């Protein structure tokens, strides 16, 4: 491992991350426009034609449930939305009553998706160049964890929206990613270089990557949870509670086994590095708490009387302990996991 980091690559990494933030911010604006105008137009056209059958297939709510039409292949958000609008008799080009959005607003959503893919690529590029600069895995300190976690959240969202109509989440995920990256650049940045001795192990690739991927999924679920709780019943342009629940559940069902694996990989690493596989180090305690509360969420969904709001609240508690583990434990507690290398 080289003792000296490559300064050109390191500088490139620092610039890429700034451009990535820029893209995320613009994407967020696009999603916000889409959320405010694009979707509500779909909704209001449904409201305008309640008797028509098409209204029974709400554009976004169709989360891959193909309702009555077995032969219809599930469609992506954008297409489904357009199709329904058409069915409802209020063509997108000629909005009823002139209140509808102009065509460019309708393009804001797809454009935002493209922008966030570019932002994602830049975010990834920044991590890669940083890792290459130091000749190691690019998650050796807290700056790098936060950057990687933003990448994972955005990645989880982008991949999920390929399959499920969840573009509405884009505004929240890209806002979270932009803020996270901004926070990392502003308060966590340290010069790149070799990692702590204890991190010289292939386990970092396994354990930390799994934790990051799971966290990305949990962030998507957490965004759903926050919207769920602040959502007004009258806010027609926001997704329905059922949609939010479904997306959150999806993300957690995928994230939870990955988290389980991350914790077990951590235990295997601890068995190699610290001489015991489990020792209630603060990070282990909070990983355990996070695990138990997410397990609680899954159980709550299966228990009568705990569905809906209560389950969402449980999910958010688990999410809070996840974030606390990432940030709070690194800052407040001293333990074996003190690899965060906060800037002094």
């Amino acid at each position, binding site marked *: 491992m080289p003792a000296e980091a490559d300064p050109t690559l390191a500088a490139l990494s620092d610039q890429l991350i700034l451009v990535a933030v820029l893209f995320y911010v613009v994407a967020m604006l696009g999603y916000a426009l889409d959320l405010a105008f694009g979707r509500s137009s779909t909704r209001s056209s449904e409201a305008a034609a309640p008797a028509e059958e098409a209204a029974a297939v709400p554009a976004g709510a169709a989360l891959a449930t193909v309702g009555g039409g077995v032969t219809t292949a599930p469609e992506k958000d954008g297409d489904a939305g357009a199709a329904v609008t058409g069915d409802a008799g209020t063509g997108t080009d000629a909005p009823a009553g002139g209140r509808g959005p102009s065509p460019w607003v309708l393009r804001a959503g797809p454009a935002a998706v493209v922008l966030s893919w570019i932002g994602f690529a830049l975010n990834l590029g920044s991590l890669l160049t940083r890792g290459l600069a130091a000749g190691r895995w690019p998650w050796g300190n807290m700056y790098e964890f936060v950057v990687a976690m933003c990448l994972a959240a955005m990645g989880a969202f982008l991949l999920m929206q390929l399959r499920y109509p969840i573009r509405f989440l884009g505004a929240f995920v890209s806002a979270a990613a932009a803020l996270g990256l901004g926070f990392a650049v502003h308060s966590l940045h340290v010069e790149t*270089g*070799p990692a702590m001795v204890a991190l010289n192990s292939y386990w970092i690739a396994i354990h930390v990557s799994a934790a990051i991927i799971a966290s990305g999924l949990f962030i998507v679920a957490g965004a759903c949870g926050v919207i769920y709780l602040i959502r007004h019943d009258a806010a027609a342009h926001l997704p329905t509670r059922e949609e939010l629940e479904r997306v959150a559940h999806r993300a957690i069902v995928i994230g939870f086994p990955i988290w389980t694996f991350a914790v077990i990989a951590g235990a295997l690493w601890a068995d190699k590095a610290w001489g015991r596989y489990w020792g209630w180090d603060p990070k282990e305690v909070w990983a355990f*708490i996070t695990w138990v509360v997410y397990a609680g969420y899954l159980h709550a969904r299966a228990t009568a009387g705990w569905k809906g709001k209560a389950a969402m609240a449980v999910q958010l508690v688990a999410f809070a302990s996840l974030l606390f583990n990432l940030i709070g434990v690194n800052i407040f*507690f001293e333990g074996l996991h003190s690899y965060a290398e906060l800037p002094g």
Partner: protein
Amino acid sequence: MTVTETPDTTAEARPAKLGAVGWARWFWRTLTSMRTALILLFLFALASVPGSIWPQRGVSDAKVAQYHTDSPALAEWLDRLWLFDVFKAPWFAAIYLLLFISLIGCVLPRTAAHLRELRRKPPAAPRNLSRLPQHAVLDGDLTVEEAARRLRKLRFRVITGPGWAAGEKGYLRESGNLLFHVALLGLLISVGVGSLYGYRGNVLVVEGDGFANTVAAYDRYMPGTQVNAESLEPFSFTLEDFQATYIARGEKRGQALDYSARLAVSDRPGAAERTYELKVNEPLDVNGTLTYLIDHGYAPTFKITDGSGQVAFEGAVPCLVVQPATFASECVIKIPDARPRQLGLMIAFLPSAVPTQDGEWTSVFPGAANPAAQVYGAFAGDLGMKDGRPQSVYEIPAEILKKMTPLVMKADPLEVGRKLDLPGGAGSIEFTGVKEWMALQITHDPGRMPALLSAALATVALVFSLTIRRRRVWVRIGDGGAEAGGLTRAEGGDFGEEFARVVAALNHGPNDGAKNAR
């Protein structure tokens, strides 16, 4: 458990006038209900929070001791509540034991039910398939036999009746779920076995010294209750050389790049020696007893002559690191054999010593570029070691120091080979060289493999239980043509997509059906 359960009314309805048996039954039902398990799960999480707030014995003993000196009254109360031993506390054990009993109570009946279920046939087709959540009209002239064949191809379990076929699949969901919970029990048992039959010990070894795995050789030895001293794996080794490298330039100057210890290991008494490069993340494994490198530091060597002209001490003194960034360290030498009076010395060791502007000395780098030893306190008198109370080798208690005669306060640092004469003919101290020490943890935990297997099993089973759904499909063939209906018993919205695929397979045969649906 992650399967829909109707509200447990039996748990709600308390027995009106039942005897002890009734109460016991009510208690058991309540304990094993889903809601109780959920609450216990949250309590379990909540109960471990204090374990991260207060320092824990066995994890950070020094901080626990510090807490007791800083605020003794509070510490005493915390101790009464086991808050320095959260994970060994009876209230913590109570929660997880109840949780696991609840788990057993939940798993046993469900395993029985699942075994019965596994042998049962799928239920017959309902009369009106169009009422089901999924429904489709099939085209072509399907026969019941052909429908059954095609469903079987899709790995449905199928039965047929007059004019209908019924298929069901997804049994692995419940199997996975049960297995997951059983694996958690296995994990708990493995951890328990490990703590009863395993041991852990710490020892500090200086370059050139050796270690043989016996209870007496440890600085600290923590056996499980079922371990006997004879069962320790009889290996031994010598620390031949310790090497550490540090970053020399830049923002991270002084951070360790790597360190490793070269050991000459003998697996059994009399066995041939082999060389082992011991590093962080690469423990030495001798038949399941593992030796870990967990810390390191400097052990300067000294030759101390007492007032009578005798060599009273010669050898290495392990120093504790005070400043991890520069490895500025401190050590204490106690010489009870010195004549005419006992000697106690306090020494600062600076691996890369430079003078500061105010006339002090400091270390600027962890590597031993310019090692210096500074005697900052030398005392003559009674070291108080005879009264039998154990003393730390790293400090002279303040109340003993008070009664001794100070000889030197803050001498100039010595380079290697230099000597400091103690005033009043009390003798001299010569700084003869620099060695390094390593701190090791040695563990034997018979529960670790079973724990790993349980954990791996739990994860795999979890994936099954979270991703597989139980689903049923029926086909009815009558005069009006053929139709299919389906439902899924667990939540998770997108059975429609799969159902479409099943319908395609029923229409065109499984192979091109699968192709069409992709």
